[in-house]
């Protein structure tokens, strides 16, 4: 027995309302399977057809079940039972299997299997049964033992049952007859015997007519199965059998009519098929399992034509064996395609690349009247040449998009619409090429700084706009470059001035810083000087105090000196008075001596001696008078001198007083000076702070000036670079520029100035470096400062 492995626990359910139909030959080989069966089995139609039916057998199914099936079928009997089948993937599904032999001319020619969706109870009981059967290793699914006896009894033929029934019914009658016979109740006996006979006769009549009818009907059914619909059926009976036969007849008519209708439909389908066979479109129809069930001639021819190309991708492809094969073979990734087509509900458009072939196909679901999909119709279209053109155009467009305008479409192998299209596209490309070439040329010279190369070709529309705009751009650029050059020149000069100015500033700030340093040290010295001043002022104050005391003492001394002088004056006056007295005495003496002389002269000769004495006296008197006069003069001189001395002393006193007040003022002033010196000291401290701040600010200024200097230098460099960059533009030869632009260009005239500027730039860079070195050293000094 074949055991298909593996199996899974996953159950697949049949859709309600579907039936699974297969035909098998007498050896159990599948000759037909309907779509539903193919679908649920998981195998392809081609896999199923030609395979033994046990391909779907599930290992759980006991062998005896199939043995029973075969036995039944070989006896010419239909067989039914729940069956567990296995799908290709190992899943399982339950069906209610109905297998019947098919007769043709009274001979079994094949078996027809029809499967329905079973109920859950059926499944449960069947699975239970099969499990028991598997466990018990039973040899048959048929009832055995008592069950078999019951079954045999149940299945006893109707004749036997009728006889048995008659016997059973007759037994009481016979008993009654016997009883009546024993009791000699002949009436009863007669009645019972009559009724019994009547019943037997009646029963036989009923039974025989039923059996005849069954037999006739069986024959008719066999003929119907053999598609013979012209069977004679008695329709005139009035009993149930008549009804039965009439219904049978109705069914025959109906089946005949249906068959005729089916044939008509089939012939219509055939007509459509014939039509499809001969249409130019490539049409292919597959069932739900994507197995090709129809191909028209065109598609056949197409695939034969493309066979070799397809075989490069799909080596197994055989155009002769397409029919019945799965559509998957066209795909490198069948699973995806399968998933896509399995859920196909509307038109699906796709393109296949098979070798060098490009084949487009449109898949459409085919629905039955209930809206269920029963297949897929696929229209194929070999778009290879179309695709080639498309590809060429696409490549051209891509290359154009990528900026390669050198490519053209080959015209040699084109004709008709494609040729016209290609010529048109080539012309379009030529136009774009020429335009872009011009633009490119112009832009290239623009990029090289030549502003003289403008587009001169004639264009229309957008191209012309583009040309105009580019030319306008060039013009405008020329103008702007001219202006920029001028500005750059100006900026350059200005920045140089700024740089030199900043250098000056830097130096000045440096000088300022050193000045501030000196100022700071001066302030330092000033501070000490002011402190000394304050101390000196203090000392001077004490000294002045002493001086004042001394001056006051001097005043007292002067006062006493004045007093002494006054006393001297008094004494002198007294002396003067005394001398006056002496003088007067001398005068009087002189007078007396004169008188004596006079007397002596009178006395004559006698008076001569006296005269001598008088003369001597007079001389003495005159000498004393002269001495008195001298003394008086001396005393008066002394008095005058004393007076002058007194005045001097008085002046000295007043001078000393003035000195005292002066010294006092001096002291006050010195105190003020001391206070002022203190304030000065504080002020100087503030000045020191201010100087320190100024120093700090100056350092910041220096740093800023340095930065500004560096910035201006780099600005100068940048402007030089800018001028150098601007020299790149060649706008001199341009004649088409408007007049003001020319004027503006004439002033800077960058090209003529450029060499000198370059030289200047070289010259300027060195001092800048020197400045930088200097400034860095200055930075270091300021760091220490």
């Amino acid at each position, binding site marked *: 027995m074949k055991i298909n492995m593996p199996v899974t626990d996953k159950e697949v359910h049949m859709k309600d309302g579907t039936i699974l139909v297969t035909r098998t030959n007498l050896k159990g080989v599948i000759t037909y399977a309907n779509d539903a069966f193919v679908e649920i089995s998981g195998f392809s139609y081609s896999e199923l057809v030609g395979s033994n039916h046990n391909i779907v057998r599930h290992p759980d199914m006991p062998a005896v079940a199939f043995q029973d099936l075969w036995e039944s079928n070989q006896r010419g009997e239909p067989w039914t039972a729940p069956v567990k089948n296995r799908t290709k993937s190992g899943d399982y599904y339950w069906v209610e299997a109905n297998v019947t032999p098919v007769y043709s001319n009274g001979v079994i020619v094949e078996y027809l299997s029809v499967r329905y969706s079973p109920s859950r109870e059926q499944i449960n009981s069947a699975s239970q049964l099969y499990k028991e059967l598997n466990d018990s290793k039973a040899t048959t699914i048929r009832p055995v033992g008592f069950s078999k006896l019951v079954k045999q009894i149940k299945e006893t033929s109707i004749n036997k049952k009728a006889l048995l029934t008659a016997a059973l019914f007759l037994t009481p009658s016979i008993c009654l007859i016997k009883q009546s016979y024993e009791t000699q109740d002949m009436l009863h006996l007669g009645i019972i015997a009559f009724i019994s006979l009547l019943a037997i006769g009646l029963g036989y009549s009923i039974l025989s007519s039923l059996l005849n009818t069954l037999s006739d009907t069986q024959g008719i059914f066999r003929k119907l199965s053999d598609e013979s619909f012209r069977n004679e059926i008695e329709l005139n009976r009035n009993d149930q059998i008549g009804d039965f036969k009439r219904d049978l007849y109705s069914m025959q008519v109906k089946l005949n009519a249906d068959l005729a209708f089916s044939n008509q439909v089939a012939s219509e389908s055939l007509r459509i098929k014939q039509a499809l066979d001969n249409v130019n479109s490539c049409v292919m129809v597959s069932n739900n399992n994507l197995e090709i069930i129809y191909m028209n001639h065109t598609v056949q021819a197409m695939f034969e034509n493309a066979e070799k190309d397809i075989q490069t991708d799909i080596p197994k492809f055989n155009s002769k064996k397409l029919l019945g094969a799965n559509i998957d073979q066209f795909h490198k990734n069948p699973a995806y395609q399968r998933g896509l087509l399995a859920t196909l509900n509307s038109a699906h458009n796709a393109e296949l690349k098979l070798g060098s072939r490009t084949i487009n196909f449109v898949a459409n679901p085919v629905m039955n009247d209930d809206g269920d999909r029963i297949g897929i119709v696929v229209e194929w279209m070999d778009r290879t040449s179309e695709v080639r053109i498309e590809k060429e155009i696409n490549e051209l467009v891509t290359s154009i998009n990528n900026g390669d305008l050198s490519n053209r479409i080959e015209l040699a192998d084109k004709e008709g619409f494609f040729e016209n299209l290609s010529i048109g596209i080539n012309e379009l490309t030529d136009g774009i090429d020429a335009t872009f070439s011009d633009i490119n040329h112009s832009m290239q010279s623009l990029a090289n700084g030549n502003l003289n190369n403008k587009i001169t070709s004639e264009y229309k529309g957008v191209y012309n706009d583009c040309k105009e705009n580019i030319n306008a751009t060039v013009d405008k650029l020329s103008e702007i470059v001219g202006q920029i050059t001028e500005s750059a020149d100006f900026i350059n000069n200005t920045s140089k001035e700024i740089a030199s100015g900043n250098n000056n500033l830097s130096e000045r700030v440096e000088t300022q810083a050193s000045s501030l340093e000196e100022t700071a040290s001066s302030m330092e010295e000033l501070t000490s000087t002011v402190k000394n001043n304050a101390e000196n002022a203090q000392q001077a104050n004490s000294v002045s105090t002493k001086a004042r005391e001394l001056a006051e003492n001097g005043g007292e001394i002067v006062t006493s000196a004045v007093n002494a002088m006054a006393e001297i004056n008094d004494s002198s006056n007294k002396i003067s008075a005394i001398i006056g007295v002496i003088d*007067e005495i001398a*005068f*009087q003496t*002189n*007078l007396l001596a*004169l*008188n004596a*002389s*006079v007397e002596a*002269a*009178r006395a004559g000769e006698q008076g001569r001696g006296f005269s001598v004495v008088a*003369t001597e006296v*007079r001389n003495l008197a005159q000498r004393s008078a002269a001495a008195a006069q001298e003394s008086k003069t001396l005393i008066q001189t002394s008095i005058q001198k004393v007076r002058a001395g007194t005045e001097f002393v008085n002046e000295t006193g007043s001078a000393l007083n003035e000195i005292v007040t002066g010294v006092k003022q001096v002291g006050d002033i010195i105190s003020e000076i001391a206070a002022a010196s203190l304030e000065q000291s504080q002020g100087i401290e503030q000045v020191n702070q201010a100087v320190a701040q100024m120093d700090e600010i100056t350092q910041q200024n220096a740093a800023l000036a340095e930065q500004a200097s560096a910035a201006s230098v780099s600005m100068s460099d940048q402007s030089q670079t800018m001028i150098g960059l601007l020299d790149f533009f060649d706008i001199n030869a341009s004649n088409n520029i408007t007049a003001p632009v020319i004027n503006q260009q004439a002033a800077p005239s960058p090209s003529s100035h450029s060499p000198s500027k370059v030289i200047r730039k070289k010259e300027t860079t060195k001092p800048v470096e020197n400045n930088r070195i200097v400034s860095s050293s200055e930075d270091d000094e300021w760091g220490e400062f």
Partner: protein
Amino acid sequence: MEQESPIDTEEENLENSIQFLSFTLGSEEYGVAILSVQEIRSWEPVSKIPNVPSYEKGVVNLRGAIVPIIDLRERFNLEHSKYTNLTVVVVLQAELRGKNRTMGVVVDSVSDVMHVDKNNIQSAPDFGTKVSTDFINGLASVNDRMVMLLDVSKLLELEGLNDTDSNDESND
């Protein structure tokens, strides 16, 4: 030495010389004969006499005798000077017309008693002094100084004090 020689000469020339008392009025030096000098006195306040010329200062009582006092400066029309205790009054006496007249003259100062050789006395010129030449006997040069020698009698006469003469006589 110098004094000895004049003494010698004085001794020799006593016979020919006249003694004069010299006095000064201002810068001028005058001399009067010593024998006409009665007395030399210092200035003393005088009793004023009314209605007399201004140079007549008044009178003094000189040991009982009334002596008129005149200011010789004013008399000689010289500038008046203040009287001090050094101002000297020379009392002169002369015999006029038989009468002995006494009068005090106020002078600036008394200089000396000098011996003048008569030969050295020169007659007074007719002009040149403020004093009327009537008063001047002559001019003498003593020690290179010019001394005007006054004639006391004329001086007293010129006084014009005749009344006083009579008074004097009456007093005598």
